[in-house]
């Protein structure tokens, strides 16, 4: 037994070492440039692809290793010069959107260049056997070599940062960028070096994990999420923290998978242990993260002396200044949109294309989800990167209830909203203790946690998800199998929710949310319990999204963990931003544009994500305010009542200062 334990411990350390290589680059860029770079996983993938290709070409593992490092260093340099440096001054939301765009581009470009079939990396002959580290427990030599290589790179990194002049400049730039550049140091060059260094570390990590993982387009995305957990646990900007956290996460994850079942069998019945343990094991590191963040919101070992500049408020990217180019078409456009939604089933019937109704239904459901996200993202300025979580929860509540024989929508749907709201209350209670980048990471990690949790629900389909055998019933009032009835039900819900959203935004509560977005500290100083306001906003938003999930489960007749996938969260975010933040019109038009474009492009080519990613990057740089900005009324036009409201709201609080 203890031999096995040593073996599992080594497995954990090996995972930890890889995670450290990934997290080191991330933590440096976060800490020094205050940059959220979700494209870091793509560098992991590129390192693996380029290194392995070169290795297969030359037959030398060492040359492949060198190629992976050098190539990703250069790619990192090019990325920094061309795109990333333009993001330093942008909001975190812009950074997330742009780097997600880069992920799409890199993944699809890789698929086009190398084909969809995975690449298999050979293990060098020298390391292909196994070593008896302890007698009786052979351990694969390659994995030992991975641990050694990872530790060696970590040591080199330590020497570089702590003992060399370049390292000193990096540290100086991190602790005070303005002062460093005043002293004549080229801070831009330092940023470029740090970013490329991080890229090379990710590339090397990708290459050395290639033989034990499959090299395929998108392979870096899962590693990225784990690396983000490491980052949050360790403390952002701290290399030492990343090292400790990486080993901790690696070991806990591996040991949890191996032993949790046996441990739980001691207290629970074997059947219960079999059900609960795998779910808990895959959620373990996320729970660990939540616990650590609850007690130490800055992470285990926060970087000392870091004075990060306040990220530009999300408000900066909000609201068009002048009238949109198409401002005069605003009323006709809204009329067209409304009329289009209203008449769609009729038109589809005339054109004999019932599929349009399904498509329209899908747009409406995602519009509801986007609308709910907009309440926290657009109105409150909380960049939640895990909102699809509640889409999944809503869907699972319907699925599980239907499986248990409860088929009434009158029970299912409110319960879906209630469960989402309760979960949101618990998760946001932890998540809202953090802010900025931490908040993005932790919402992402919570969504991943529930994703893995749902994947372990063996009785409800596990990874596969499950087929919804019966759509919700409404005591004979409505038949969801009639696609027209279902469509109009969803449309009515959307209209009601959009109306409620507009009322909410103009209420005192909504004003307070906007105030938090613009300047939370001031709101707090003025006496608003901002934490409670944000919590309530998150709960409302989750409840609405849960309803969207209930609708989605019925529309797709399917419930599965993929509803909670982080790409789904990114999609929701893209819809909101592309449509325009802080307006219900934006969320609706964003959902329509996103799904329409996806359908259109994916019919053209299977490589549609390349164009999609490029559009996303362009949107960040050119498309300020999103689609709805095109139709924005002139200042002094319709938007005035909201401003009036805000003055009315502001007066009693600000008068004493005058």
């Amino acid at each position, binding site marked *: 037994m203890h031999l096995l334990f040593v*073996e599992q411990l080594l497995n954990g350390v090996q995972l930890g070492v890889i995670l450290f290589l990934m997290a080191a680059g991330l933590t440096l860029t976060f800490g020094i440039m205050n940059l959220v770079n979700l494209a870091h996983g793509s560098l992991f993938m590129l390192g693996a692809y380029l290194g392995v290709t070169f290795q297969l070409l030359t037959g030398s593992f060492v040359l492949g290793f060198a190629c992976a490092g050098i190539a990703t260093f250069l790619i990192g340099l090019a990325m920094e010069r061309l795109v990333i440096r333009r993001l330093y001054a942008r909001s975190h939301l812009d950074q997330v959107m742009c780097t997600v765009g880069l992920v799409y581009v890199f993944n699809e470009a890789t698929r086009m260049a190398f084909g969809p079939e995975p690449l298999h990396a050979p293990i060098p002959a020298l390391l292909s056997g196994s070593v008896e580290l302890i007698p009786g427990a052979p351990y694969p030599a390659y994995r030992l070599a991975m641990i050694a290589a990872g530790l060696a790179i970590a040591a080199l990194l330590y020497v570089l940062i702590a003992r060399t002049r370049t390292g000193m400049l990096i540290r100086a730039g991190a602790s005070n960028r303005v002062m460093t550049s005043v002293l004549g140091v080229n801070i831009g060059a330092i940023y470029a070096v740090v970013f490329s260094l991080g890229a090379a570390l990710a590339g090397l990590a990708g290459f050395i994990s290639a033989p034990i993982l499959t090299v395929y387009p998108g392979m870096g995305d899962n590693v990225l999420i784990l690396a983000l957990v490491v980052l949050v646990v360790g403390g952002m900007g701290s290399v030492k923290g990343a090292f400790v956290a990486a080993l901790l996460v690696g070991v806990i994850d591996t040991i949890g998978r191996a032993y949790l079942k046996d441990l739980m069998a001691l207290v629970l019945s074997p059947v219960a242990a079999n059900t609960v343990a795998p779910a808990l094991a895959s959620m373990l590191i996320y729970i660990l993260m939540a616990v650590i963040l609850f007690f130490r919101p800055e992470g285990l070992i926060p970087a000392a002396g870091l004075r990060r500049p306040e990220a530009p408020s999300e408000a900066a990217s909000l609201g068009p200044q002048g009238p949109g180019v198409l401002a005069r078409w605003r009323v006709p456009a809204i009329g067209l949109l409304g009329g289009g939604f209203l008449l769609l089933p009729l038109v589809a019937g005339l054109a004999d294309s019932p599929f349009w109704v*399904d498509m329209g239904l899908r747009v409406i459901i995602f519009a509801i989800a986007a609308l709910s996200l907009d309440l926290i993202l657009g109105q409150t300025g909380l960049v939640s990167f895990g909102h699809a979580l509640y889409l999944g929860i809503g869907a699972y509540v319907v699925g599980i209830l239907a499986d248990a024989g409860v088929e009434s929508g009158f029970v299912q749907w409110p319960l879906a909203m209630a469960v989402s709201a309760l979960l949101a209350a618990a998760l946001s209670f932890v998540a809202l203790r953090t802010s900025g980048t931490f908040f993005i990471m932790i919402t992402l990690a919570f969504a991943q946690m529930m994703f893995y949790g749902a994947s372990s629900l063996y009785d409800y389909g596990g*990874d596969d998800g499950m087929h919804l055998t019966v759509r919700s019933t409404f005591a004979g009032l409505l038949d969801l199998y009639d696609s027209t009835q279902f469509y109009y039900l969803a449309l009515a819900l959307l209209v009601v929710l959009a109306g409620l959203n507009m009322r909410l935004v103009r209420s005192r509560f909504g004003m307070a949310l906007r105030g938090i977005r613009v300047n939370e500290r001031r709101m707090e100083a003025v006496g608003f319990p901002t934490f409670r306001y944000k919590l309530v906003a998150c709960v409302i938003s989750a409840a609405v999204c849960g309803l969207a999930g209930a609708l989605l489960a019925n529309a797709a007749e399917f419930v599965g963990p993929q509803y909670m996938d982080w790409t789904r969260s990114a999609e929701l975010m893209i819809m909101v931003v592309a449509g325009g933040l802080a307006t219900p019109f934006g969320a609706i038009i964003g959902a329509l544009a996103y799904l329409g474009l996806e359908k259109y492009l994916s019919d053209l080519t299977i490589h549609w994500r390349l164009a999609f990613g490029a559009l996303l990057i362009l949107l960040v740089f050119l*498309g300020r305010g999103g689609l709805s900005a095109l139709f924005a009324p002139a200042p002094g036009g319709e938007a005035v009542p909201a401003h009036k409201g805000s003055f009315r709201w502001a007066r009693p609080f600000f008068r004493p200062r005058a």
Partner: protein
Amino acid sequence: MKASILLSTALSLLCAVPAMADTVKVGVILPQTGVGAALAKQMQAAIELAMAHEGGKMGGQEVEFFWSDSQGKADVAKQLADEMVKSKRVDFLVGPLFSSEMMAVHGGLARTDAFVISPISGPAPIAGKSCSANFFNVSSQNDQQAEALGAYLEKLGVKRVYVMTVNNQAGKDMVSGFKRNFKSELVGEVYTRFGQVDFAAELSALRTAAPEATFIFYPGDMGVQFVKQYAQAGLTKSTPLYTVWTVDQATLPAVGDDAIGVRSGNVWSIDLPNAANVRFVADFKQKNGFLPNDYAAHTYDSILLISSAVKAVGGDMSRKDDIRKALKKADFASNRGKFAYNTNNFPIEDYYVREVVKGPDGVLVTKTAEKIMTDAKDAYYQECPLK
């Protein structure tokens, strides 16, 4: 610019191509991107070869194919299938590949009159209680290849078997199939996440359990990595590996010599001596430059099956009942030598165990070792109300 894209989207929706009356429309849903991409490539090549063998037509009719990419995701597959049936009005739907996708697609399609030809996936519910007159499986019910291996290991007198599979519908079907004929207690039963490719922790546990044999179900790359890591951990010699849907001609080049000696349960093998198979294998290799695997073989049969039904009705796609009868008759030259349908539209066929060996030219091939079951029927057909 975005507005123009939106507009063009709207326009392209409005100008959807009007349906042509006299072509046979076949929709194909495959996981062209994602975990199943390599399998999809085999299947696509097989469809193209089958059409070439049929002279590009079915029963004298032009054939129009609609291809789409499910990404291996059940909800995407469901959406695509609805579109195929409701909007593109396909007569036959080939795919989707994975059982999870098939389960998501099946309920909705059973309410339409489209014929679903499942080249691979045969989930237990569709073979039994929720069987449907318009659903035809071409490979086997999910449990069955595992049943064959269970019977084989029972016959060999092996007592201690460790089972590892993907945690999904197909995985569970495989395990229940295996247990049906294998009577001893399993020493380990491990389910891993779909897409997991690093099995270090699980293999360490496996070694400690010291089984006599290991049975796995890991399609595609998961299997490639598993077999390699199994060999690296030094287990191949001490504990023979038995697989279903894992080690085949498509994955062998990637696994390499680590796969030698691995045995699997199948209904088809590259060396089956019937004429249809010899022609299929030779032409497939010549056309594509790589050897076909089971996925390709069964997809090839799927197209021949459709073609036989279209021929039987003289290309008149409105005669749904006659098409259904013709599909059930399955009058085509299968590369399995013989092919017949049971009442639930799942095949009655023979099961073999095959072994990976190094051919005389140094190429790894699967060689049929033994026939395990003859004219076997699946375990669920009596639950199916179809006659």
